[in-house]
């Protein structure tokens, strides 16, 4: 199973196996990783699953779809490498990906 690493704003690092096909958000929720709220359950309507993706992985991700950037506008402290983790589907290509969660989601 692909491994995803979640780093929280204090620098604490958690690496977990996430099943292919799940989103990076679902991987976090199912494994009780703090820092991702996902209030809308993956509907791209809340921006509380906001993460920063490490540069080398950011460029490998499929481009944002319609609506994702609109939601990121509303997220807490968006940056160039911001994504919504509910829109990132785990695959073999993303094995080893590192994401950082913001200091808060709202």
């Amino acid at each position, binding site marked *: 199973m692909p491994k995803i690493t979640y780093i929280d704003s204090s620098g604490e690092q958690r690496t977990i196996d996430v099943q292919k096909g799940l989103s990076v958000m679902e991987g976090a929720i199912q494994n009780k990783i703090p820092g991702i709220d996902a*209030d*809308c359950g993956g*509907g791209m*309507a*809340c921006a509380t699953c906001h993460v920063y993706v490490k540069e080398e992985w950011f460029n490998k991700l499929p481009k944002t779809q319609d609506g994702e950037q*609109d939601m990121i*506008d*509303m997220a*807490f402290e968006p940056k160039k490498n911001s994504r919504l983790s509910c829109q990132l589907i785990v695959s073999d290509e993303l094995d080893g990906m590192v994401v950082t969660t913001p200091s808060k989601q709202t």
Partner: protein
Amino acid sequence: MIKTDVVIVGAGPVGLFAVHQLGIKGLKSEVIDNLDKAGGQCIELYPDKPIYDIAGIPECTGEELTKNLLDQIKPFKTNFHFNERVQEINSEGDNWIIKTSQNKVFSSPNIIIAGGVGSFEPRKLSVKDAEKYEGKNIFYSISDKNIFRNKKISIFGGGDSALDWALELSKIAEVTLIHRREEFRGAPHTLNQIKKEGKVDIKTKFQISSISGQNNIESINIKNDDGKETEVKTDYILSFFGLIMKLGPIAEWGLNMDKKTIKVNTENFETNKKGIFAIGDICTYPGKLKLILSGFHEGALASVECFKRARPNEKYRFEFTTSSKEIQARLGVKNK
């Protein structure tokens, strides 16, 4: 004090259908919601998106579903209390006393919490001192635009609210519109109009970094992606980053919670407190699905227990709407 059989917290799709299930059993309910209208997530987050999994309705938008649910409960002439948040719940004998943010008080043997992921509130700016100036120099909605006359206004956001207000206020004030990226989510024709009139200073790829001032805001600093800061003289900040769901006071009512959800008994959707029920997105139990159709079922079961508590001397009888004359009378159906 308003006395009723059931107080429903939340006018989302699930709260609305609960009105129906209670109504056909002859119970009166009062519905309270923080928003200014019914529909919850359906109306606030996706009014124009089609839903495909409402049983018996192949396709309908969030707005259409809300309208249909409101039509379906029309016969019960339910009172809605909008723009009010339920703040406090206290017990008094077998009843619950419910207080809202507008100091309205209700007394009822039953409370159904259909609060979704919490009440919708404007997303606030997170920079230092934003709270201190809120309501004075920082606004998340506008009630009187005249206070902005001849002032310096910084507007944040990329949606319709930000664009509409930038255009409108540029007629009476000095407006700077600040947005994180070049593309705006709001209607292109409003943006074109703003550009054509040329009165608004548009700063894209900037975000707020700090606020300066004493009693009132004097200026703000904004920074771009490369960390470069610019000062903007500002009297008022208007920030339009949409709404966020905040669990709020529900967490303080002594209910058994699992993160932001309330644990329930799936026989009747009662919480750990007698007479307080939780249905829809806000409840949790093994296998819970956050779907509208699940919420409808949960409301039907909760309504039976509400009946038993509101009418302790009557026997609950299971009946079909197709055959019960009593239910049809409550629905105002004219029998042929």
